[in-house]
């Protein structure tokens, strides 16, 4: 394993599978009444959140605590820290506090890599979402969830067809998933209006569709991305209604999905916009599993990054 987890690109296929297998075993252990493992006793993990994300922070916090690490939550949003000029000072503070690991969420792409590269601190850096760049643990928990349902929790994801639908341009979840799914052998199709796909998307190893209904019944997984309502003001699409009609997962599309197709969403959802309530709550939906699996995957990541340090 690497020292840091900044991008899925830091991982080999073997690294990624090792994380998934470790998470699998940890999920099994923690299914029993065992709530806490002594593995990281005496280590300090700092949750450094420059952006609100209660669910991600709680998931990392639960993972760290189940491994008996000391957790310090550092919410920098709204304070002077969120202005950016003091990322260096924050790092120096964390170094002085003796942080063994830093879980960072930041609105700027590359902030996690910056923290890791600058030698301002010696601890491991885990990217919990940086701007519109990557969110590697989300991709890992997505892969874990897909494997759990479609591959008996074993091996890679070869042969599966995964559609990632929506605002790919601004989605760190999509970027991490594109890299990881490709590594694990799945075939990815991006489904979005051209305005919400990056220019040069053809350099990615994915198929691109502007029409959600085309091949709808051929996907094994449909991963819906959150649409930010303010994107409408920037003319990315004409109206919420049009977006929802063309790219939303509604009841009609749900009924056309193949029998075992999984419906996923990284949350938080805009019910009624990119996903209808009946789709989110259907038997195909594994959205709740994604949240649950997040803790095991993050435990595995923390253990593998910090366990030997």
């Amino acid at each position, binding site marked *: 394993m690497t020292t840091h987890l900044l991008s899925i690109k830091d991982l080999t296929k073997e690294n990624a599978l090792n994380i998934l297998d470790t998470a699998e075993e940890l999920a*099994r252990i923690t299914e029993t009444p065992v709530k806490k*493992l002594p593995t990281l006793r005496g280590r300090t993990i700092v949750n450094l959140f420059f952006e609100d994300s209660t669910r991600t922070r709680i998931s990392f916090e639960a993972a760290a605590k189940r491994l008996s690490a000391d957790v310090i939550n550092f919410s920098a949003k709204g304070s002077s820290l969120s202005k950016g000029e003091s990322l260096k000072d924050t790092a120096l503070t964390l170094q002085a506090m003796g942080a063994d690991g830093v879980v960072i969420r930041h609105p700027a792409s590359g902030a996690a890599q910056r923290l890791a590269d600058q030698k301002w601190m010696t601890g491991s850096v885990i990217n919990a979402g940086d701007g519109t760049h990557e969110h590697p643990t989300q991709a890992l928990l997505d892969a874990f969830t897909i494997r759990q349902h479609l591959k008996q929790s074993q091996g890679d994801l070869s042969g599966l067809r995964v559609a990632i639908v929506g605002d790919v341009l601004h989605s760190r979840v999509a970027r991490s998933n594109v890299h990881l799914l490709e590594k694990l052998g799945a075939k990815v199709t991006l489904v979005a209006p051209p305005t919400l796909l990056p220019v040069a998307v053809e350099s990615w190893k994915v198929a691109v569709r502007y029409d959600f209904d085309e091949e709808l019944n051929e996907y094994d997984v449909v991963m819906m991305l959150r649409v930010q309502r303010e994107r409408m003001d920037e003319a990315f699409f004409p109206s919420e209604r049009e977006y929802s009609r063309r790219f939303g997962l509604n009841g009609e599309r749900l009924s056309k999905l193949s029998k075992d197709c999984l419906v996923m969403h990284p949350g938080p959802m805009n019910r009624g916009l990119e996903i209808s309530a009946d789709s989110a709550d259907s038997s195909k939906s594994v959205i709740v599993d994604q949240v649950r699996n997040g803790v095991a995957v993050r435990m595995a990541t923390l253990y593998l990054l910090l366990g030997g340090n």
Partner: protein
Amino acid sequence: MAVVLDSSEINRALKRIAHEIIERNKGTSNLVLMGIPTRGAALSTRLAKVLSDLEGQPVEHGTLDTTMYRDDLRGSAPRTLAKTEIPAGGVHEKEVVLVDDVLFSGRTIRAALDALAEHGRPKSVQLAVLIDRGHRELPIRADFVGKNVPTNRSERVSVKLVEIDGADEVQIEGRP
């Protein structure tokens, strides 16, 4: 390289341990063997077979991974986790015998005791090892020992088992 036990000696040692376990626990009806991966788990499977052959009834056995309970993780690459398999009857109120290949510092057994405690409160916990090489760092001793092998700290005891390594043999490496 010095051979400490060959294949037939390993099997004889396991048979002797099996007899001692039966004697100590007055049979196998409340017994659970918990092997510590990797080679302890293989030994425990063999021991369970010997015990059930002797007693004419199956013996409950499982595996217990101690990795996440170790206090010496720092400084080495993180290990990949092995499986923990608790038998259907659980470990609560059972006579649990931990099975490992080599007893050395005692830290693995300490971790195993912690791991075991998360799954219930056994009536008693005993320890069976194929080799006791000394150099304990904790107040831990084995109840059943295949062979006591005095060693230097710098030496390495290598246990090979058919199930994992293709052959049965215990050697000491690094002895001049």
